[in-house]
């Protein structure tokens, strides 16, 4: 009993979301040097992309920063989510929960500015981190990623009874063994999803990276951003097509992996 207007709006909304993406992919194969003008089929923009060292360098740096920050976020966010879900009530729990969730609700400009201020103050006081670059961007992205992972892990554990860990201990598992054989496998899907999300967030971020990167830390989004300020180029179409293909592939793989699980 869904009113027709609701269904019309669904398809309208989907068309709105997909229109730029579809055009982007289609025109990536156009020979014209004006984006979104058809000039016959050509792969020249993919070739141009492959020759754009600045963009490729930024992409390579972005991938490393994203992988590093996502991994750090999974370790710290996993620990945070587990502590929040399984340590019961302890002194400082609500403070920990508030701090863990803060990056989710703070505007990016505030988080970015505050992290830069921290890195500058730290360097002034201790000499570390020496200047800003890939490392500081990685730490900034890990901070944001940690918050997301913590929320995902906490809610995943909250849906699973503590009974499971108690049953493991009842059957003779030490607390550490119960964690390794029961809790960790339960957390695994959340950790994987959290890693992917943190990775994506890092690959998409302009604001945090603008604040915390120095001249040596230009990530792909920052490079793209300065390109787009001057207008759109067909190379970006080609890049978008590649990214979309990679995303669809990843999603398909994840879907296959998750199939057959609970």
């Amino acid at each position, binding site marked *: 009993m869904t009113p027709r207007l609701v269904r019309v709006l669904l398809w309208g909304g989907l068309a709105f979301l997909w229109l730029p993406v579809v055009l982007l992919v289609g025109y990536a194969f156009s020979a014209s040097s004006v984006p979104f003008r058809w000039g016959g089929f050509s792969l020249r923009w993919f070739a141009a992309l492959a020759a754009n060292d600045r963009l490729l360098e930024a992409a390579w740096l972005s991938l490393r920063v994203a992988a590093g920050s996502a991994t750090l976020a999974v370790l710290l966010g996993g620990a*945070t989510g587990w502590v929040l879900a399984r340590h019961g009530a302890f002194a400082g729990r609500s403070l*920990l929960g508030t701090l863990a969730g803060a990056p989710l609700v703070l*505007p990016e*400009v505030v988080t970015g500015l505050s992290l830069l201020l921290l890195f500058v103050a730290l360097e002034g006081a201790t000499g570390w981190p020496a200047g800003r670059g890939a490392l500081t961007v990685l730490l900034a992205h890990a901070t944001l990623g940690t918050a997301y992972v913590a929320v995902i892990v906490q809610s995943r554990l909250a849906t699973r009874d503590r009974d499971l860990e108690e049953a493991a201990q009842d059957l003779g598992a030490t607390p550490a063994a119960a964690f390794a054989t029961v809790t960790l496998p339960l957390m695994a899907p959340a950790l994987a999803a959290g890693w992917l999300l943190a990775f994506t967030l890092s690959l998409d971020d*302009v604001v945090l990276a603008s604040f915390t990167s120095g001249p040596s830390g230009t990530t792909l*989004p920052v490079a*793209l951003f300065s390109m787009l300020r001057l207008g759109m180029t067909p190379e970006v179409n080609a890049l978008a097509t590649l990214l979309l293909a990679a995303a669809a592939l990843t*999603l398909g793989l994840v879907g296959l992996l998750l199939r057959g699980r609970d």
Partner: protein
Amino acid sequence: MRVALRLVPGLWLALLVAAPLALVFVLAVSWQSNGVPPYDPPWAGQGTNPDNLRLLLEDPYYRASLAQSFVVAALTAGLCLLLAAPMGIAIARAGRWRNALLAAVLLPFWTGFLIRIGAWIGLLRDEGWINAVLRGLGLTQDAIPLLYTHGAMLLGMVYAYLPFAVLPVFAAATRLDPVLEEAAADLGATPGHAFLTVTLPQLFPALAAAFLLVFIPAAGEYVIPELLGPPDATLVGRVLFQEFFQNRDWPVASALALALLALLTGPILLFQRLGRAQ
């Protein structure tokens, strides 16, 4: 052992979330200087500096910037909701198509935010696809300026944030009991009436959460106004960047961050309460 395990996330969060925010407070009452870093903290001898915060209250430029940000964020969130509410509900009721439709909403998200905004640049500019279509249809001779307008900025914001608004509505709509609408029909309500009087009211908390989920980040948005908006769309995110990077006035930038945070405290607390209630 367990206490030590709590310390790891505790210390990380203290260093990378609590300490940075505390520094924003310190900077907001510091003095701009020509040194490196370009500020003198209150304990450097000059005491606290009230001028940065006073400037925000007195200078109409900053006041207008904060006000404009809130208007744009509210418009963005409202428009997102108009689309997201029917989309979330329809997807939740799509039966075996549910997962495919949800993926269709989320997949564009993975092309990268900047690239999708870039696509709109290509579509909206004078020689762009939309103007070409309009000319092709004979609706216009000269290009209509679309890019770098308030409309383009709003369009980009709605486009970027729409998937975030769909998710909470979808999640809440899947938890609705379809029997309730049947009960309403049994008691004489038409489908439309049942939807308005039974289904929508149950979704209010989710709709409010979706609105805030868009409103809060949109209020501090920097990239979209910069890429799609007109120069006079001086939203607070843009002004903050300008103060920080062009004017190297870190204290005023921090004061702006603080002002934005203060204005968003209410919406943030409300959002977290809605989250806990669900």
